[in-house]
């Protein structure tokens, strides 16, 4: 009995939800549409609850560091949990539209996230230098088209030869389109196959420990 509750029912739920959504999508049955809508409505709320799980994990991990006074770490853990609590307290008190919440968001999250993202600029520069080398035949092809596109995006390219923007755009619009189309078609089949196996209970990794 407990085996049924623990495993079979969840697998059946996944399957049934899948079927409802497929019928809703492919067939014109209005009644199913209502069920589909309700399910997706539920999904919105349940995934909102899932956002709390990450916070709990952080509390466990960094609370542990603080308690154990882990060398070179606990003080950082303290900063982490302080930031976490600051956002939750201010956010719950005044909502995301509150002026103080907007202030901490704009002055803490915005610069941190923007700078992390921006730091990729450093890595792509050193990466271009290191990786765009004529080491093998394939790497040489990569080097040549890479430089053509760099020249297309920098006005010096067109100034040197007005063919750069034309060739660059042609590669992007024609060759890249077709290549990505081929890759996309292939991987969509892979995704589809796994999705089908998941819905019929052949892949049950998401259930976690047995």
């Amino acid at each position, binding site marked *: 009995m407990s085996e049924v509750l623990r495993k079979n029912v969840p697998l059946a739920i996944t399957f049934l939800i899948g079927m409802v959504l497929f019928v809703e999508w492919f067939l014109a049955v209005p009644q199913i549409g209502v069920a589909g809508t309700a399910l997706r409505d539920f999904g919105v709320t349940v995934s909102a609850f899932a956002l709390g*799980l990450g916070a709990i994990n952080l509390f466990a991990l960094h609370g542990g560091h603080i308690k154990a006074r882990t060398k070179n770490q606990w003080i950082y853990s303290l900063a982490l949990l302080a930031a976490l609590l600051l956002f939750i307290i201010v956010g719950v008190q005044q909502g995301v539209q509150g002026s103080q919440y907007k202030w901490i968001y704009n002055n803490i999250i915005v610069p941190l996230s923007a700078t992390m993202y921006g730091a990729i600029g450093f*890595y792509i520069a050193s990466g271009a230098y290191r*990786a765009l080398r004529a080491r093998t035949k394939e790497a040489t092809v990569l080097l040549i088209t890479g430089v053509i596109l760099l020249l297309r995006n920098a006005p010096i390219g067109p100034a040197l030869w007005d063919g750069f923007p034309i060739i660059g755009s042609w590669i992007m619009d024609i060759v890249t389109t077709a290549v990505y189309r081929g890759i996309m078609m*292939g*991987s969509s089949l*892979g995704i589809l196959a796994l999705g089908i*196996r998941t819905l019929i209970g052949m*892949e049950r*990794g*998401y259930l976690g420990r047995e």
Partner: protein
Amino acid sequence: MEIIAKGKIVALLVFVAFWIAVLVYIRLVQGGRKVEIRRLAALDAIDEAIGRAVEMGKPIMMNPGLGSLSGTFAADTVAGLAVLDYCSRKVISYGARLIVPIAQPDVMPLASDIVRQAYLAAGKPQEFKAEEQIRYLSPDQFAWTVGIQGLAEREKPAANIMIGYFAAEAMILAESLARVGALQVGGLTNTFQIPFFVASCDFVLIGEEIFAAGAYLSKDSKAIGSIAGEDLFKIVAIITIIAGTILSLLGVPGIPALIQM
């Protein structure tokens, strides 16, 4: 009255046919039909990278990516975990150390189980140190990335295998691990990021190759059967494109419209 929604007839037919084909191939493979998946160069590279790290006495990092098990990228993550299964057995049988950085909470218990099983199979379960080896970092993209950078600086892995879903951080990861001298094998379906792995990793599995690699290494009949079904549909797609174009050139109109019915 229409029963099938407009614009979805062909899609539904293809969907159902694909579903059947995958199930039939899985049955066939389970029934003993021999389906061999072509060996990919990047897979040999995984062995080579592990061997090199063992010789150097340094750890091996295996990264199953940023994806979770319930989102759009579940498929990529599952492929990464299949490769993790293979890597951990190999690494542990050589007596080397494996580090697995984790982003999503739901991936952690699975990765942990896989590595624990490998230690059990090698007869040395007492050597498995879950907290040290299966490193839960953060589901936040860049916090996870930064955590991996830190791990790389401290542990200096000699091999870095990254197969799964990767986003903008792909370039940072590949550069940071190159900094510490790791031999790198990457694999992903996210077309935005494939160029960066291709440029910065020593070997790369591109797009669908990660599913084939997972199937090849796991020898799982369900995964192998699926690849056979996928191949059939790629051939069908190729034939449709070529035949459709020939018909269109001969002046038969409306082939694309037919496919979009």
